[in-house]
């Protein structure tokens, strides 16, 4: 779990408050509330889930339960660049797992994680639905077909080039942004 950046806590609290204000406070509304909070924040931080549990008067375990049951909900913040590797049948057969591993190695994170500087997030998805282009990777909503490990390096070069700040700076923002595992 990544640590929160400065000011992020306030943002989360405000967002949860706003969403809770717009919905009637019943257990049945739990999924819509989670969906709306995720839409605003991009993910479901632990803090938000705790506050939602309080607000709707349901056990926090139920909220975690739903958030982890459905694939739509994510518990890590999205990176600046989101990479989704398709591991549908056709992609798997054509080496999608090798592609995923190449990204993991290059980004130095595992699937469903976000890099500490939040520059990348990496996910696996079940099927993008363009099996004839397998193996497929979705980079920031752009579908890339027939992605070999060599192409992974190409994609990574493009993404690396898009770092903020002066060239050569190895890691992301210093203040509070870098974090370790919780």
């Amino acid at each position, binding site marked *: 779990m990544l640590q929160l950046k400065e000011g992020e806590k306030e943002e989360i609290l405000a967002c949860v408050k706003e969403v809770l204000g717009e919905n009637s406070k019943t*257990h*049945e*509304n*739990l*999924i*819509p509330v989670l*969906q709306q909070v995720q839409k605003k924040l991009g993910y479901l931080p632990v803090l938000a889930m705790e506050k939602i549990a309080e607000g709707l008067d349901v056990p926090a375990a139920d909220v975690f*339960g*739903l958030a982890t*049951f*459905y*694939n*739509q*909900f994510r518990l890590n913040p999205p990176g600046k660049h989101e990479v989704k590797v398709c*591991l*549908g*049948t*056709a992609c*798997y*057969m054509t*080496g999608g797992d*090798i592609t995923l*591993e*190449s990204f993991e*190695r*290059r980004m130095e994170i595992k699937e469903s994680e976000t890099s500490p500087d939040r520059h990348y997030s990496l996910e696996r*998805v*079940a*099927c*993008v*639905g*363009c*099996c*004839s*282009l*397998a193996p*497929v990777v979705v980079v920031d909503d752009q*579908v890339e*077909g027939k992605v*070999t*490990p*060599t192409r992974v*390096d190409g994609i990574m070069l493009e993404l690396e080039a898009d770092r903020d700040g002066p060239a050569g700076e190895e890691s992301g923002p210093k203040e509070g942004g870098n974090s370790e595992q919780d």
Partner: protein
Amino acid sequence: MNKTDLLKRYEDMKEEARQSIQARQEKSLVLIGTATCGLAAGAMQVKEDFIREIETKGLEAEVIEVGCIGHCYAEPLAIIAKPGYPAVCYGNLDEGLVHRLVEDFLAGDDPSYEYAMAALDRNDEFPTFEDFPRGVYEEKMILEHCGLTDFKKIESYIANGGYEALAKALSEDPGFVLEEVKEANLRGRGGAGFPAGKKWEACLNNGENEKYVICNGDEGDPGAFMDRSVLESDPHLVIEGMILCAYAVGSHQGYLYIRAEYPRAVEHVREAIKQAREKGLLGSSILGTDFSFDLEVFQGSGAFICGEATALVNSMEGKMGMPESRPPRLVEQGFRGKPTVLNNVKTFAYVPLIISRGADWFKSTGTSESPGTAVFSLVGKINNTGLVEVPMGTTLRQLIEEVGDGLPNGREFKAVQIGGPSGGCLPESSLDVPIDFDSLHEAGAIMGSGGLVVMDQDDCMVSVARYFLEFTQHESCGKCTFCRLGTKHMLDILTDITRGEGDLETLELLKELSEDVRDGSLCNLGRTAPNPVLTTLRYFYDEYRAHVEEGRCPALVCRDLILYYIKPPKCSKLCNVCVGSCPTEAIYTREDGLKAIDQDKCVKCDNCRKACPDEYDAVIKLSPPELPAEKERKAK
């Protein structure tokens, strides 16, 4: 409103639609396939190119987005319909080809047949899709208009005879719809093949006032995209089917449950619902009658288990998508505790056709027990990947060799996986099995929702079984012990086998456990999860044995059982490609200038093998992972 007025009202609507479509067809039309598969291949860029080229030339032509025509292997593709010429389909488009087509065909009079795939109308100049082997076997029912009709305009659907079935049904008793569907013996296309008519009748007989019709568009099979294509390309067909069902069972509210991962399907269906309401085909007093029915889209949060009927209903009620034991069945106690009909997207899509053309027309295709057609998404090691619709009873061999045009580059067929994670792998010897619900079940696979993956000699069956089990294990909802823990243990055993660990007893244990999971689970996810394992054990036992007894993966896939090796006689001193391709700097140059791989650093990413130029082809995989001793000594 009497029968004549009702039909007249529809006829007027159809005439109006036809005129507006005809007016459109007076100029040249460019139809671009922009379903998800097309978009992935760059259809939007092609669309922009067409618009730009047409504008530069100052031509009178309209560019229209259409859905999926089913020929995914040739995406991005477009159909050009110019008055006075047959409509022609072009594939694998790029900027240059677009430029040429606009200049030669739209501006000039040369249809550039050398770049065409096929014509769509019969003509004397160029073959149509029906003239290819694929066209001979294919028989399109629900895909008939997919990729040819403008999904953004309800007029396109109506001009083709859409909503005619609805007008016809409303002019008759609700019993007419039910009788036709029962007579047609329409079986549910979600996989199990339960007769839709029976289901509807049970719901009808439950007498309550409040009833629901739900369309299951939670297509979760990795590698299947039929439902998505139908929803994206011809949404009104499904909507009309649902209205007809609602009329038959007496429901006034329906829901389309669509995966959140299919944003375009959601968007297209919502737009279609809006237009149908505006035309008075949906909502209160449909076509002026006293029958009312409305539809809403519910976005699924993404869980494979929600394709199971009771789990789907639970998730619509805001709970975790866990299945319930049945009875009570959904037709007795479904959504909000009320009688509910739940059918697959494709099942609903057949209904308007059956009503307007009759049950006998439907039964004239397919087999007596499984009438109609089957829709498959054909993927894997096959030339013509895409969406196909063939009559039930077509054999797998015809489907793969004729419709799919066989395997690419003369590869050798090994197995075909049908029905996704719940289906099975069938070998060459089963290829003459006819495709219908019952025959496939006997062979150990299932019809499933229609994913069909072709595999060749480079695919390891143990690894494939492991892949599917990993999927079902992850998606197991955790309710039943056998499914929750059993699949986990099966996965552990399979993982061990892919590492060469275990013995023949392990295989026995795996088989036993598979049967227990099958028998001890409540819903079909658990009951069918062992299918990929059981079928591969049954048909490809030798491959399992090679893994555990020899530590060898015959297909050279399982990474713990292979190593990469550069054959010195084939390697060239003049080439350095592999060195640069290696992400872990495992490849070094030997004293004699040839390359070699440091096995400790190698992560087996396959980069060097792909990078090695064809004329050398020096990088090979070896299994079991033992270096050829003598040659390695020379290397040092």
